[in-house]
């Protein structure tokens, strides 16, 4: 199923094959059916219980979700336009968040694109399971069109192959850090083509202290579990993993005393940090203290280190991951605004009305923060990501001026 590329010539052969595939429109029944059936297969796979990220992916591409997406896309397609695919999309997912490739690829696929997806050379059971189901489905004659227009590829250190694929594509999607984006840009695109990049981001949470203190034990447990899922998954190294908790209003110290033990307990169940993680957090804490940024530390076992800052502006956005959270107190949600920068992506919120959140977004006016989500939703992939509407980004509009 996966095509191993040994040279730029191999890449050219893949490109030729994809170009020969029949053109399809967004939400073509074969494409929608393939994606939905893949999702159903993942949800039914017993191995998904061991790898919950497969469940998340399966839910994302359920038949009902795809139908809703088709309706939403139709709703934003003006009547004097026809929505068409971008063409050939080259996906460069991160090596270590296993399911990103599938979100990126499947969203582009239902939008009617031909796709070439570069998979990591690193062996991953999660990727292997997805690919196994993909291979089985694409072998069926009813998905021949999809099989013809999509390629999962793998290759080693070879800029020539990256150049060939980049030159051929209409849209290149790069998931990864700033360094990765910079490196991949050494390979030129065709004049009309463009990059959709998802570089390094910083994410945080804003919790109203009084709202946390008002919770009964059961509700506090639920909040702690939800936040722990946000924080501890992917070793806290995903772009959307919250790395800072901003306490809003009175009672921050007491609220932390209630919440952090719960977070640590759940964190211990989710991920046991390796010694290298523990040491990295110690060193990070020491550096933050030496710089005067951290004024206090709570160490809740190996799993969770909480560093307190008295001024959010002093908190560095670099981060060791693996269960380290900054905390800082402000009087009002709006006090966050001066500190936010373009790099800030996800704001996990608790205890605020929708109006307050919208007012914050309005006062930021695009300076930063691309998504505001409830606890437990930080890592949930969505069509709206990093300020892009992926369904729109993977398509173009043809303007039809009737006489």
């Amino acid at each position, binding site marked *: 199923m996966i095509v191993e590329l040994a040279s730029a010539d191999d890449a050219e052969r893949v490109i030729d094959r994809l170009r020969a595939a029949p053109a399809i429109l967004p939400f073509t029944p074969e494409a929608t059916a393939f994606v939905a059936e893949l999702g159903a297969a993942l949800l039914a796979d017993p191995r998904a219980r061991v790898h919950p990220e497969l469940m998340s992916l399966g839910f994302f591409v359920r038949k009902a979700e795809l139908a809703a997406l088709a309706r939403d896309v139709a709703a934003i397609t003006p009547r004097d336009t026809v929505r068409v695919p971008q063409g050939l999309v080259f996906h460069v997912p991160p090596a270590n968040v296993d399911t990103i490739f599938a979100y990126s690829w499947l969203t582009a696929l239902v939008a009617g694109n031909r796709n070439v997806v570069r998979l*990591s050379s690193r062996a991953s059971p999660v990727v292997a399971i997805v690919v196994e189901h993909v291979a089985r489905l694409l072998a069926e004659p009813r998905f021949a069109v999809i099989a013809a227009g999509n390629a999962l590829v793998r290759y080693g250190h070879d800029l020539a192959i990256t150049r060939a694929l980049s030159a051929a594509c209409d849209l290149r999607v790069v998931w990864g850090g700033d360094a990765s984006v910079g490196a991949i840009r050494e390979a030129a695109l065709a004049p009309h083509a463009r990059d959709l990049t998802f570089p390094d981001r910083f994410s945080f949470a804003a919790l109203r202290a009084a709202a946390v203190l008002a919770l009964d034990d059961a509700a506090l447990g639920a909040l702690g579990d939800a936040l722990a899922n946000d924080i501890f998954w992917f070793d806290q*190294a995903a772009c959307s993993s919250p790395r800072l908790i901003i306490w809003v209003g009175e009672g921050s110290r007491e609220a932390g005393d209630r919440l952090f033990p719960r977070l640590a307990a759940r964190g211990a169940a989710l991920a046991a940090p390796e010694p290298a993680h523990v040491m990295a957090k110690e*060193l990070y804490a020491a550096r933050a203290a*030496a710089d005067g940024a951290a004024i206090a530390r709570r160490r809740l076992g190996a799993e969770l280190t909480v560093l307190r800052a008295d001024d959010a502006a002093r908190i560095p956005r670099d981060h060791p991951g693996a269960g380290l959270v900054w905390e800082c107190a402000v009087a009002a949600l709006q006090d966050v605004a001066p500190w936010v920068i373009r790099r800030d992506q996800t704001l996990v919120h608790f205890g605020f009305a929708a109006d307050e959140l919208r007012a914050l977004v309005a006062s930021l006016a695009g300076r930063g923060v691309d998504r505001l989500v409830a606890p437990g939703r930080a890592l949930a992939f969505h069509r709206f990501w990093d300020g892009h509407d992926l369904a729109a980004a993977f398509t173009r509009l043809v303007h039809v001026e009737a006489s």
Partner: protein
Amino acid sequence: MMSLSDRIGELLAAPPFGVAQADKDAALAPILDALTLHHERACPAYARVIDVLGAPWIPVGLFKTHTLRSVPEADVTTVLTSSGTTGQVPSRIFLDAATSARQTLALSKIMGELLGPRRLPMLIVDQKDLLKDRTAFSARGAGVLGMMNFGRAPAFVLDADMRLDVAAVEAFLAKHGGAPFLIFGFTYMVWTYFLEPLRARGLDLSNGILVHSGGWKKLVDQAVDNATFKRGLRDATGLARVHNFYGMVEQVGSVFVEGDDGLLHAPRFADVIVRDPRTLDEVGPGTPGVLQVVSALPTSYPGHSLLTEDLGVVHAIDQGAWKGKAFSVIGRIPRAELRGCSDTHAADARA
């Protein structure tokens, strides 16, 4: 009341080995406490760190990013820098005359135990031109230079391409081989560039005393451990007196040397504490963990208590003539697997 310097001096004056652990702790602990106080007063960054972390030790990596100095800049006589791995930021260690003198004295006390009171002829398993550029010493150069204080008539035996100059070895042996002599080199280089070419040549190094250091990582990859290393040397050359030592640029002088039991020992003025790599609580003999190293030597920089990035294990306490803790270093803490969004195929794209 004695000054802190005098108290450290007293510790340094006594024989470095042979003190029971309880006696050692009783003498060392108050000095370490006094050093913590001293550095808290003299180094504000250190004071902030231990206030926030709630422990007197600091991670050794802090010296890579922060200027940690407990004396006025004008008093600094030497700045030591670690080599680290290629591409890494080096540690910077600030020495004044007093700390520097203590380091030299400490090392000579320890080496005196291994080598005797007289300076021995010295065969150096390193390149002849290692010390040519005196303005830019590598850590290797600094290590060799430090050891040259304890030998005389130094003979470097590797050429610029790391080839062994067998004639130089033979000339050295002809002159000095009949009585005790010192061999110094880095562990990996001794094995690879010295022992390998010497095999089957039948040279007699049985009067030699090898002192070596630098870590086992490359040799462990070739399945060469300390026992293999020593057997190899003994079988090929008759060299039987071999002492590995463990030390770091952040605590020059208070090195841990291999005793007759094949294990590392802390001198009177230093110690090693093994900590659970997750809880950081101290663990007892037999349980591996992260090594914390303490030393009474440094007053010019806050390096008297450091959490290293090495794993080790204490095997026994107060057994054998040297008493104290007998331990071994297992190696570096294994790297954690990189996760997260920030790692794509950057390296591939650049290739």
